[in-house]
């Protein structure tokens, strides 16, 4: 076992250089709430850990064209305290804030939740529903990619060698629009999502749903965008009938597994329930605009 090295670079370029040189044996440390658990359980043996929390641009939340650019190392607690983001994207903020305890919130980051690539990551469906983009920087420069494209399967990402996610861009939100995220866990806190559902929708002046995005977590190898579910909402006033069709579409999209956190049948059924409830919350928020 080689000794692990720890580096805390001050810039993105420095971090990328360190990661690129480490040739796959390096891990990025953001909040560490997953990395340190894996380290402790001997699931990983990194040669190098690159702590990105010292890079100031990764810690910032910056308004941009009506939306917000959120540094990858911004913690759940910091995001939850940001009244601006909370007002515009309440579903994204509530999803991030659901992760773990207050202690975890003080450490866990939006970028970490994304790059850990857990199918049950709470923030990811909400970011997908919000149509968020993330900036990826690597040895070949910077690129923008849809959040939905980052995770490719459990623990797997599309990031190339030496690439890191540096920030996440939440777009401007139109008028009469809102988002919401709900998840199911067996307890009231501290569990991993058994099912997560994010709904983002836009109403027109008459209260008809003009646009919608619905994303599901924990029911497939990675978070799913479900256009069929969104279609159930678009073009109507999101009445009970539409909500039932939404639920059916959400259920139909599920490809879950049986594990200790839930069964296939349970996840599928509850995905429909939560889709309906999350849409109801998003709708109420959009109407109260």
């Amino acid at each position: 076992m080689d000794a692990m090295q720890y580096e805390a670079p001050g810039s993105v370029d420095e971090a990328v250089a360190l990661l690129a040189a480490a040739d796959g044996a390096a891990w990025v440390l953001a909040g560490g709430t997953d990395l340190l658990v894996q380290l402790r359980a001997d699931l990983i043996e990194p040669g190098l850990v690159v702590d990105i929390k010292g890079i100031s641009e990764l810690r910032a939340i910056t308004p941009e064209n009506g939306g917000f650019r959120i540094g990858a190392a911004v913690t759940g607690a910091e995001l939850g305290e940001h009244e601006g983001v909370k007002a515009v994207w309440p579903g994204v903020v509530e999803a991030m804030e659901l992760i773990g305890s207050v202690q975890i919130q003080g450490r866990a980051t939006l970028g970490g939740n994304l790059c850990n690539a857990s199918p049950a990551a709470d923030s990811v469906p909400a970011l997908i529903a919000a149509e968020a983009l993330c900036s990826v920087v690597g040895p070949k420069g910077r690129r923008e990619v849809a959040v939905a494209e980052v995770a490719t399967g459990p623990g797997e990402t599309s990031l190339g060698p030496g690439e890191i996610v540096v920030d996440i861009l939440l777009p401007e939100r139109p008028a009469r629009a809102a988002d919401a995220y709900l998840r199911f866990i067996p307890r009231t806190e501290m569990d991993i999502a058994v099912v997560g559902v994010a709904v983002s929708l836009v109403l027109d002046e008459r209260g008809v749903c003009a646009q919608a995005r619905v994303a599901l977590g924990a029911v497939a190898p990675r978070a799913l965008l479900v256009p069929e579910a969104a279609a159930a909402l678009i073009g109507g006033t999101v009445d009970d009938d539409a909500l039932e069709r939404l639920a059916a579409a959400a259920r139909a999209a599920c490809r879950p597994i049986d594990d200790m956190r839930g069964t296939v049948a349970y996840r599928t059924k509850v995905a429909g329930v939560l889709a309906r409830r999350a849409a109801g919350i998003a709708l109420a928020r959009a109407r109260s605009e």
Partner: protein
Amino acid sequence: MAKYHVSTSINDEAVEFLCEPQQTLLDVLRDELQLFGSKEGCSSGDCGACSVMLDGRLVCACLVLGVEAEGRAVETIEGMAKGDQLHPLQQSFLEEAALQCGVCTPGILIAAKALLERNPNPTETEVRYWLAGNLCRCTGYDKIVRSVLAVAEEMRGG
């Protein structure tokens, strides 16, 4: 193994220590600095027995590397009483019997103090959700929650 030299502040005192990069802040507090008040219950951030403040944020010391303490301020249970003066929460936990075995108590006190500094007037539900990251297997939380609510009221009353 090469050790890292870390300069930090623990309970308002400048502290320097050497640690291996994979050692957690909890390992460092306990094994290197002999500060045994922070407890190890799970090493996965699930029990909260190692709760400490890091630059004013409540964290699990088991989910922080020791090297990350460089240049930062750590507060532990050992710093909660000032001289011979117990913090009102400590005093209340004693008076209200808010502990039995006491192993979760340091973490819960640190977490409760962080709550009251942020929200001096929490509801019962807010206290319960704030403390959800601190497992207690003895008390059923009843007397803990009552104690925190009582101290909040007392501190508001001045």
